[in-house]
């Protein structure tokens, strides 16, 4: 019996590539990612055999998870080049650019998302946040006003920050108070209110918001600095020294806290060393009985 293989002519041979395809690379990476092996998952995608937008999408996701935002931005950039109408990829690109500190570029990417899909409220929020970094406060404020009710809390927060940076203190405080009524434990709201009180030199407000923040977060450096500042302004040297002492324990690099601790201790010692007039009557009365 003749072997059929003998009849095979070279022109009939179909070449089967032994090189693994892109899909197998993606499958390997997804399996590794699901087991938490992100570095290895990324390694499985490093040398793609051909261009595939999904491969670059997965790669961008893994790079983002690893905190490699610049690399992730490059991955998503290649996706949007091949799929210009992919709003998700544009949005992820915008996030990566934002995390890389590329505020201007992130604004453009967010704007592209909104051009493709005006209902992307998160993109509007991201755009507002980047505009704040660029100090384009009027535009940021306008964007936060356009945010939907679904993102009311963060949008109000964005408005409050924009107003505060515009030195519109009263309006900013009103916005922050709305937020506190929704979430009394919002640390960043209280922290910004402390900064607002310092800016307007309203020591009572600085003290009140600092005390509120300290109750929520006993290690909050901002709260301790607010209370130390108020104590120093009001010549309460013991309290100032106490707060500064706590700050330097938490933040040994805080030069202001070291300096103010020394100032407060100096003032305490100076107060002790100042000679006081002797009260003759009390000497005659003998030692005080407690």
């Amino acid at each position, binding site marked *: 019996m003749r072997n059929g293989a003998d009849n095979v002519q070279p022109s009939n041979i179909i070449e089967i590539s032994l090189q693994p395809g892109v899909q197998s690379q993606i499958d390997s990476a997804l399996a590794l990612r699901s087991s938490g092996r992100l570095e290895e998952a990324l390694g499985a995608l490093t040398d793609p055999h051909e261009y595939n937008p999904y491969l670059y999408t997965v790669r961008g996701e893994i790079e983002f998870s690893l905190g490699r935002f610049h690399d992730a931005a490059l991955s998503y950039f290649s996706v949007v080049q091949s799929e210009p109408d992919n709003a998700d990829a544009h949005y992820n690109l915008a*996030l990566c650019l934002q995390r890389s500190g590329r505020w201007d570029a992130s604004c453009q990417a967010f704007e592209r998302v909104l051009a493709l899909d005006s209902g992307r409220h998160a993109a509007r929020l991201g755009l507002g946040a980047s505009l704040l970094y660029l100090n384009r406060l009027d535009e940021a404020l306008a964007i936060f006003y356009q945010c939907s009710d679904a993102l009311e809390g963060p949008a109000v927060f964005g408005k409050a920050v924009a107003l505060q940076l515009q030195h519109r203190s009263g309006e900013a405080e009103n916005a922050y108070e709305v937020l506190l009524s929704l979430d009394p434990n919002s640390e960043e709201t209280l922290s910004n209110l402390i900064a607002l009180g310092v800016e307007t030199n309203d020591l009572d407000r600085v003290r009140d918001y600092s005390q509120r923040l300290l109750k929520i977060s006993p290690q909050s450096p901002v709260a301790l600095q607010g209370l130390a500042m108020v104590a120093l302004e009001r010549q309460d040297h013991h309290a100032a020294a106490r707060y500064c002492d706590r700050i330097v324990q938490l933040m040994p690099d805080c030069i202001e806290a070291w300096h103010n601790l*020394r100032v407060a201790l100096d003032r305490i*010692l*100076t107060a002790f060393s100042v000679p006081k007039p002797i009260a003759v009557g009390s000497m005659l009365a003998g030692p005080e009985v407690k």
Partner: protein
Amino acid sequence: MMGNPQPSPVAPLIPTPSHGSIELAPEQPREFHFAVTWVTLFAHLDLLESSGPRVQAASAPPPLALVPVAPSAMPADKRSSQDAGAETAAWEMVVPKMIRTTDGDFAPAETVPRRLL
């Protein structure tokens, strides 16, 4: 001593100036830096993870067609003398009228080719 009983790296206190020495002005406190932050906003900005390869939406054939409404049955020799003929041609947008057939499908209402004006 205050709450921290541990040795502190605070610089030694400036001694009280004695009589005859230069009178130093007492040191003033330094201002703390209170920054305005908006980290809260980023908590609402999460990466959109894909669930699989993106499926491209199939592009539907355009329902509109452009057909010339100017007579174009002119002989070629005459057309060549009127070189501006193509530029002066008027175009009309024609929306084909569709009717529902008995089996629930759609078919063009006119089977006879549209007569050019």
